[in-house]
């Protein structure tokens, strides 16, 4: 997919401008104006070139980069795909990367300079103010200036911050990182005496103990870790010896869902288990735990394949003992310096010296929303005479600051980034700038630092210094590859102290424990501006357009509350009202509060979706806080997307589980009255590996982004009218306290004996020569009979003209028509991508996005294709095969009991 850029990169912006201009010309000749870009109905637009190009660039999550290829058409970035060469992407994407094009095209993005929250058309006043403040700061050496940013690993941004601090030596830099776990850093200090991070190589791990860790869950390293874990599973299937994943957790996670053994424990119980396992290896005082001995034995047996991971919310002692155990076992971990470690203070540190602050520059951070409870940010912003916020969105902080400056979206600007493992990558504009007034964050810093701020200059300055004479060649290479080769730091050859002094466990707390967690779709709240993520059912629980606190069934029964009941949560005198979701697999006594909701100012989204758990979050204990009290309010709130009774007693389970090497006997093929279809050429098919599917939802959003799937909004979603062509079903089994979860992505099955085809009175859904079951939108009159007859329920109906509603399809792929009101639509196996691939390898959007490569797609007539090989595996089976629909999409059974 990488199309090397034919022109030298410094010219790219002018090139893209030219492309934009030619698009405008084409539009003038045709019927699209730029606002209507890519809005074909039924057919491809005329006048827009079919040739698309991909540019390698990098996007950050929590300051750590993930490489992407931005597919552009006529100068517009329309879809992001993973950069296969980037270590934090490996060709895959997650939901946050997929939704970045939406944020880029968000009509509610910040477009104007603002003073006291009010938009200004003219920048002159701002320029005057900025010049005056610079002069004032120059006189005082920066006394009173504070810079507040999000976590920063970017070499250029860090260099510019250093330059800024050099210009104003008395200024200070503070970092607000709501997703950071201070205990992890403290644990590393305890074990090694210096800030390091351990990078686990899950691909080489044969026995993993996760102590509250969620390596498969969302985060900057998810894609790499999930790929590694899937590789280990693949090797295990090959060898007939599956790797073991033992997960101890308080609240269900994606990792827990894939665990071979899952222990539901409160945070303190996880700590006790960790200490007992460590004690079994001779670290720390003897401690007993009923589960410790077998786990220790398993780890010992795995030897260098053993791996212990400590997660968010665990105290420093558990992080330290995990480091110690990994060293002791020879676990496959690489120790590298923390790419985010910076000589910066914290938000609490900033507030501690609030009196001294006269100037506050907030760059790409939203402390007015995501600061912990008890830190009076609003007060600070009111008191500070001069404050400037720069951000892509108009958010809570933007409105509270004296000035707000619109920032460019990362897809519109130059920059660089480091991945979780330290690999650096260059960011380049992959689209025409959609907001001309906006400025790149590095350009702002460069300006303040007194450097050349134009375009790529700040980034080039960084790397020219690093590369010297080699610069020109390496710069081009790095831009094309999407990463800077060999820029990852060498692993540190250090060992933990032999006598790690584990601090004693905290005294047992009374009452309920509040566990704060990043939200599966909103993360820390920064994605609350994006409709795709609001309308994405959370992998566990299925809630969308809102949030819920998770409560164990036992606790819910004790309180007498059911799903949707609104509780009053009280923690340290602060109160919050939130609906409850009774969650099997949640540890009793533990209440999980997802962060990221309840934003009051979130771009074009209505305020107050979900609830603001930051308002309860203590600064001292950001992840686990005891002493929570619950009180039912008697009110109830519908949880959109959550369906209670989902389990069905089935003759044949829909998610099959087999032992390694075991084969599922094929079903007999009943005779049919109709001749079978014949495919002399290609025949498309799909195989989805349920053993490696981690339920991350990346495929769902990739499909939505690729196929112009409209957002229907909370009211329609509550009615069950979401339009996702691909859904990931959560299949639960077992008793509530030990619930096991499987994920099953369900796209259209493209049945050979398609039940939908015969019931359509007007032949709107038909079979094509390569076995695709196609929808002919213009022919559909909307009887919906096909949906009734589809046993997989993969067909979606345009109850209203969703695609034409404002904001429903903000970014449009011109290769896929928008569907009008009253027609059925469904998965096409990305027919347009098949066509675009020609004789080459066709990849569906979902397949491309999958971090674990669980989706195989291709020509089943070609015996050497990956999909044909997958379908020949013994564990291949058809969903509802007994109905004899002969689906082209089949599944590979999960390995395990």
């Amino acid at each position: 997919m990488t199309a090397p850029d034919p022109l030298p990169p410094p010219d790219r912006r002018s090139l893209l401008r030219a492309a934009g201009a030619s698009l405008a010309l084409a539009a003038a000749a045709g019927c699209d104006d730029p606002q209507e870009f890519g809005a074909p109905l039924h057919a491809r637009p005329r006048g827009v070139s079919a040739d698309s190009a991909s540019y390698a660039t990098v996007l950050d999550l929590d300051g750590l980069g993930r490489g992407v290829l931005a597919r552009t058409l006529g100068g517009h970035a329309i879809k992001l795909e993973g950069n296969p060469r980037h270590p934090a992407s490996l060709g895959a994407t997650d939901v946050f990367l997929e939704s970045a094009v939406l944020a880029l095209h968000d009509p509610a993005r910040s477009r104007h300079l603002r003073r006291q929250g009010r938009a200004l058309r003219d920048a002159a006043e701002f320029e005057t103010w900025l010049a005056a403040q610079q002069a004032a700061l120059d006189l005082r050496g920066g006394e009173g200036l504070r810079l507040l940013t999000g976590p920063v690993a970017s070499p250029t941004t860090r260099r510019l911050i250093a330059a800024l601090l050099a210009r104003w030596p008395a200024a200070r830099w503070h970092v607000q990182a709501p997703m950071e776990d201070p205990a992890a850093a403290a644990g590393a200090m305890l074990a090694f005496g210096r800030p390091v991070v351990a990078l686990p190589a899950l691909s080489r791990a044969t026995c993993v103990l996760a102590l509250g860790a969620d390596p498969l869950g969302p985060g900057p390293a998810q894609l790499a870790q999930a790929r590694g874990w899937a590789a280990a599973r693949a090797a295990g299937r090959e060898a007939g010896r599956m790797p073991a994943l033992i997960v101890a957790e308080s609240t269900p996670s994606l990792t827990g869902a894939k665990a071979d053994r899952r222990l539901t424990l409160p945070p303190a119980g996880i700590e006790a288990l960790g200490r007992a396992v460590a004690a079994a290896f001779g670290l720390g005082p003897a401690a007993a735990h009923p589960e410790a001995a077998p786990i220790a034995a398993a780890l010992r047996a795995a030897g260098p394949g053993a791996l212990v991971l400590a997660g968010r919310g665990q105290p420093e002692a558990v992080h330290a003992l995990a480091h110690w155990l990994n060293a002791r076992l020879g676990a496959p971990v690489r120790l590298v310096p923390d790419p985010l470690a910076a000589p910066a203070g914290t938000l609490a540190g900033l507030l501690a010296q609030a009196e001294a602050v006269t100037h506050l520059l907030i760059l790409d951070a939203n402390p007015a929303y995501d600061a912990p409870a008890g830190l009076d940010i609003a007060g600070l912003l009111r008191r500070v005479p001069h404050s400037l916020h720069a951000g892509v969105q108009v958010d809570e902080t933007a409105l509270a600051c004296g000035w707000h400056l619109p920032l460019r979206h990362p897809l519109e600007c130059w920059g660089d980034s480091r991945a979780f493992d330290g690999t650096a990558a260059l960011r380049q504009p992959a689209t025409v700038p959609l907001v001309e007034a906006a400025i790149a964050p590095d350009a702002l810093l460069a300006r303040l630092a007194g450097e050349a701020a134009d375009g790529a200059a700040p980034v080039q300055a960084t790397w020219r210094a690093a590369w010297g004479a080699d610069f020109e060649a390496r710069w081009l290479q790095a831009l094309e590859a999407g990463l800077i080769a060999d820029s990852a730091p060498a692993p540190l050859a250090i060992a933990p102290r032999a006598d790690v002094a584990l601090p004693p466990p905290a005294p047992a707390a009374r009452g309920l424990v509040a566990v704060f967690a990043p939200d599966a779709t909103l993360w820390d709240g920064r994605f609350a501006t994006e409709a795709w993520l609001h309308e994405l059912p959370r992998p566990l629980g299925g809630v969308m357009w809102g949030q819920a606190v998770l409560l164990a069934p036992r606790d819910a029964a004790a309180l007498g509350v059911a799903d949707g009941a609104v509780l009053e949560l009280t923690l340290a005198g602060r109160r919050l009202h939130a609906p409850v979701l009774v969650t099997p697999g949640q540890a009793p006594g533990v209440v999980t509060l997802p962060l990221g909701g309840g934003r009051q100012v979130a771009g074009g989204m209505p305020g107050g979706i979900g609830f603001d758990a930051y308002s309860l979050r203590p600064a001292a204990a950001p992840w686990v806080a005891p002493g929570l009290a619950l009180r039912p309010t008697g009110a109830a709130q519908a949880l959109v997307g959550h369906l209670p009774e989902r389990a069905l007693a089935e003759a044949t389970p829909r998610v099959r589980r087999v032992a390694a090497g075991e084969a599922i006997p094929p079903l007999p093929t009943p005779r049919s009255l109709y001749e079978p279809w014949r495919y002399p050429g290609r025949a498309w098919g799909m195989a989805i590996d349920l053993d490696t599917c981690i339920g991350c939802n990346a495929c769902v959003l990739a499909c939505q982004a690729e196929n112009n799937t409209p957002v229907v909004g909370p009211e329609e979603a509550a009615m069950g009218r979401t339009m996702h062509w691909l859904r990931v079903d959560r299949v639960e089994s077992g008793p509530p306290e030990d619930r096991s979860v499987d994920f099953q992505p369900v796209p259209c099955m493209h049945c050979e004996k398609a039940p939908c085809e015969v019931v359509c009175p007007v032949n709107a859904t038909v079979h094509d020569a390569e076995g695709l079951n196609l929808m002919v939108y213009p022919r559909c009159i909307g009887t919906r009979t096909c949906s009734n007859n589809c046993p997989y329920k993969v067909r979606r109906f345009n109850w209203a003209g969703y695609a034409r509603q404002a904001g429903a399809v903000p970014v449009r792929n011109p290769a896929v028509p928008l569907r009008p009101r009253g027609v059925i639509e469904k998965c096409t196996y990305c027919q347009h991508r098949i066509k675009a691939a020609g004789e080459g390898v066709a990849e569906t959007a979902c397949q491309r996005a999958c971090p674990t490569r669980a989706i195989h797609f291709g020509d089943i007539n070609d015996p050497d294709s990956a999909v044909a090989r997958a379908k020949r595996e013994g564990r291949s089976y058809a969903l509802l095969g007994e109905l004899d629909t002969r689906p082209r999409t089949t599944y590979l059974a999960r390995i395990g009991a």
Partner: protein
Amino acid sequence: MSGFSTRPVSDAPLRRDFGWRFTAAVLASAALTLLLAYAVVALLWRGTALWGTNIPFVWGFDLINYVWWIGIANAASLFAVVLVLRRHGLRSAVNRFAEAAALAAVAAAAIYPILHLGRPWLFYWTVPYPAATQLWPQFRSTLVWDFWGIMSHVVVTFLFWYTGLIPDLATMRDRAAARGRLGLARIYGFFALGWRGSVQHWARHQAAYRMVAAMVLPMLVSAQTIVALEFATTLVPEWHQARLPLQVVATGLPSGLGVVLALAALLRGGLGLGRYIDDADMDLLAKLTAAAALACGYVYAEALLVAWLEDQATRQAMAARAFGAYAGLYWGAALLVVVLPQLLWLKGVRRRARYAVPIGLAAAIGVWLDRFSLVAGGLLRDHLPRTGPLYAPSLPEWTLLAGTVGLFALMLLVFTRFVPVVSMFETRHEESEADAP
């Protein structure tokens, strides 16, 4: 022959004033019909998003009401046909308005399959015509069968009603002319197709009438069956059952009979036709309703029992329908359709209109609940767990239902205003038979 005795029947349409009750009824039903027009325009303007439907409940009131109205139409005309073919004594009294009720119900029903479409203005694409696209309908689709089913239903029901009406229209023509209302006489005369009452006319009329009736009979069963096949041919476990056509035909009977019963009572009271629709007629009608209800009881029991012997999916689907989220509809239907009409076996109940009529209407409501239970409750247990919330009708759907009730009522009121409600020639024929030695 005592032409004298049918005078009150023919007088009714010739009366200039029908009284305030009739005017009020016409106004009310016309208001409801206007509401229907509003609902239809709103639907065309805003689309099916107005309804409470979703995935998987893609069908709601559109299909529920369609199947219900078709059931009423079928039962009413089935009843009329049986009377004609068996030359039953009751036929003179009730078959005319039974036919009219059937026609009005078909008209109400025929609206739904069109409005139910996502793009209703393209409904004609189900018609096999040589289109420029060179595309024929998918003849394997039950929806195409249904198109033929409903089309023949409309045509044959109309023919049946109209053929029976011709001699009476001629009578009306003559009596209107005798009263000097020549304009009215001309209109009646146009529709009487030049009927002069010759023996040849009578012979041909009898042959034609009986032939149309004979045509109606199998077609009614088949029309109902096709509607049922729309469900039965899908893979949905609770729908995919061979018994479904029988069940839909059988459960349609009490609702149609109940409606006819209620109409008969209304006509007796409202138009003073007690002599022509006598107590024995009402008695027989009530007994028929009770008997049909008993047959439904058998159908219900059979469904439950046979489901128990079926495969797991079907068994669970039946259990979900009878005991799941829509259990109230299922048991409500069983109560109103099967149990309640059994009271009509009691002479004291069926002889009193104030008991018999509510019971008949309750049976019609019960069958509506049964259709709801079939369309929505039948989907509770599909092959995979449900992906959407439950279906609940929205206000626009209720408006549409109220509107079609209004249309039905309006058509019947217009019918009583302009057409003899009791078959005069049959009454004369009956009485002459009675007079004969």
